[in-house]
């Protein structure tokens, strides 16, 4: 599967390996977000509390690259 293209703000292009890792992280975070917040809503007898999972999601989100993180990773790889 083709990787996403990520560029640091100083113009450096992340390595293919780092792109792949970030691609997988992004997909995971976005998938968890969708499982929790999207999809068909049925009025069931039981709806699981997702408060704990939301915290997990926040943790994943923090891991996901912001521009600043990307900068740092690009610099570290340089």
């Amino acid at each position: 599967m083709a990787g996403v293209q990520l560029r640091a703000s100083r113009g450096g292009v992340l390595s293919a390996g780092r792109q792949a890792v970030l691609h997988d992280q992004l997909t995971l975070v976005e998938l968890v977000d969708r499982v929790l917040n999207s999809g068909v809503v049925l009025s069931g007898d039981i709806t699981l509390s997702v408060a704990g999972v939301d915290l997990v999601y926040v943790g994943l989100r923090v891991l996901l690259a912001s521009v600043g993180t990307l900068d740092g990773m690009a610099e570290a790889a340089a």
Partner: protein
Amino acid sequence: MILVYAVFEESGVVPVLAGVGGETVESRAVGALAVATGTVRSAPEPTEESVLAHASVVDALAAANDAVLPVRFGTGFADDRALVTELEAQAERLRDLLPLVRGCAEIGVVVTTRDPEAVTRRSASTGSEYLHRRLAAQREEDRVAAAVHEPLTRLARAAARLNATPGFRAAYLVERPAVARFRDAVHELARRRPELAITSTKPLPPYSFASRVGGRA
């Protein structure tokens, strides 16, 4: 307790799968629809593992069928009667959504920018300057959205902007044969806008289009 994973057509296929609680996932027909369900003794703990198990079941169902509507995590019914009653109440809406997602995958796109509000707070010395800069930052975000969202929407059957602070997130419903072309377009946008971090997800089941009327939002 009956957990629900996805809605599909009565003729749909459910591969051999283990559900969130390790139970075997089954198909139950309700009129022209079918649902993938699992019967468990008690509600599973809402953990990351459970969420990913739910996602794995939906993934497998989406791989085996042309049209699948993922059900939000954590929906359970006390018995068959309650499940059937709810599905019958929603049958028309669900039947209408299935053609929208048929043959499509969802691709998420995230454009990460620096937090314009935080930048504004740091740099503005007066209230009016703050408001002026915040407006400029908002315009920049709108410009980014237009540069990314509009061309990608033209390549999708449907699109939806999602909440994101800061930056831009959206979901695109893309016909499976066009997924490679769509991702090429994302790469091209990233190449043209090196100041932005533009990323896309792998193809996902159409979560973002399973509870809305289709359209190019």
